[in-house]
């Protein structure tokens, strides 16, 4: 309760500071709109459905791309942790490509796929896949070997040991990696939506870019806020409970 209160107070002060900065008229209101006009935009956009539709389009792209990233990344990460050959080939590739900022994939995606959903998806997958591979690999390497030995003495075969021992044992690392992969996917999708204008769907990034085209600063800031709130919600609704569960089981963290 006390923590909630401190959050509320902090953000109220922040909003008030913003409001007074606007009142001080240091910058033109075209560049720095009042929080109330941003709120007004958000209200209108929410009412007429623009915001909701754009969010839906964005989330659909994100979940598809991120889903592919996870479905490919976790098995590949297991393989690079298990086989020296995979480590020296795909592992090195993943390590290298992970350092590439995801927005760098946009020109290539545009040339390969044109102004299509495919380009969008490609950027999201490339943005999240490598970091998921690397953290899965890292998680599996951190599993104490004694777990696998203990399982073997109890009669567990290879496949059973991998699915029932090594994978759950690496869960804390893998979940951290999935969270990081989510953040990367989110960033790369926004980059893609800003640079790739397509007609098949109007996402949040496009709404943001559209705001720039119209010189509608209230829209730009409003959409940015919406993007922040979605990121926060995903963290609180999806990842926090999983992390909390892991902390409780493992006895780590503050939980």
């Amino acid at each position, binding site marked *: 309760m006390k923590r909630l209160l401190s959050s509320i107070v902090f953000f109220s002060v922040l909003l008030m500071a913003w409001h007074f900065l606007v009142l001080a008229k240091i910058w033109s209101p075209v560049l720095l709109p009042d929080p109330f006009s941003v709120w007004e935009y958000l209200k209108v956009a929410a009412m007429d459905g623009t915001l909701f539709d754009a969010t839906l389009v964005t989330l659909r792209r994100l979940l598809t791309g991120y889903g592919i990233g996870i479905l490919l990344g976790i098995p590949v990460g297991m393989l690079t942790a298990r086989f020296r050959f995979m480590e020296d080939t795909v592992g090195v590739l993943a390590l290298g490509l992970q350092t590439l900022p995801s927005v760098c994939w946009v020109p290539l995606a545009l040339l390969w796929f044109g102004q299509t959903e495919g380009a969008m998806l490609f950027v999201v997958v490339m943005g999240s896949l490598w970091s998921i591979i690397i953290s899965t690999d890292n998680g599996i390497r951190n599993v*104490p070997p*004694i*777990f696998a*030995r*203990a*399982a*073997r*003495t*109890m*009669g*567990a075969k290879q496949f*059973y040991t991998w699915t*029932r*021992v090594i994978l*759950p*044992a690496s*869960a804390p690392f893998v979940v951290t990696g999935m969270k990081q992969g989510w953040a990367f996917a989110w960033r790369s999708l926004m980059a893609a939506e800003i640079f790739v204008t397509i007609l098949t769907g109007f996402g949040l990034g496009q709404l943001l870019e559209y705001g720039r085209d119209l010189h509608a600063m209230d829209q730009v800031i409003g959409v940015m806020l919406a993007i922040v709130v979605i990121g926060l919600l995903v963290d609180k609704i999806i990842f926090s409970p999983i992390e909390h569960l892991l902390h*409780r*089981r*493992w*006895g780590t963290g503050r939980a």
Partner: protein
Amino acid sequence: MSVQDELKSVAPAKLLIDGVTKSFPTRSGTVLALDNISLQINEGDFVCLVGPSGCGKSTLLNIIAGLEHPDSGLTLMDGKPVTRPGRDRMVMFQEPALFPWLDVMGNVLFGLRLKPNLNNKERREVARFYLRLVGLEEFAHSNIHELSGGMKQRAALARSLAPNPRVLLMDEPFAALDALTREQLYGDIQRIWSERAKTIVFVTHNVREAACLGNRVVLFSPHPGRVREEFQIDLPHPRDINSVELASYASRITRALRGYVDAPETELGAE
């Protein structure tokens, strides 16, 4: 198979270790961990393998478990060669090696789930039986990190016992515990050994512990790992680690051990 059949004491097994040799490559050359070890372990024996670190006693235990393979020689269990791990030989390690993503019950069930011919209800019943045997019944649904060191080893013991093995292999299972907890576990393991009739091979570097638990104490010396001497401990179980008779056995073994550990140097001196 019914739970009653499952919980019946199985006949303990006889182990025959015949000319087992094992070496490991290290940075400074090959180390001969076990040099032509032969040892017969009878049905229901409680054998303690004692020796300083590096004498290969843990390696021998892993070979009996089937986790490692000897360079030459073989291990027979009731006449059949050991080639891989099996539920008839369960291992307890120095670390409890409990799975933190499962609760205590889940850990005990882990080995049982790999056992066919039982349904899940029966498996739970079997698991509860062993949790009761080690005194952890009330902690069935605790997380692993909530248990004390001694309770963790009890849970690990229950997990090893649950598949009803004929041989229990224990690798310094109590070494990391405090003295008081250890004494309680000495009592427990002796009680379980006599109730459940297992063949136990117990590795330790603690001579007193060996004398307290085993009916046989086998002495190893390092570089290369060899069996030096064997002691028969003819005291009735359960034994108290602090008893005077035990102390006299322990000091005899310690004296012998000292002789063997110093031996290479004396040999060098004689040359």
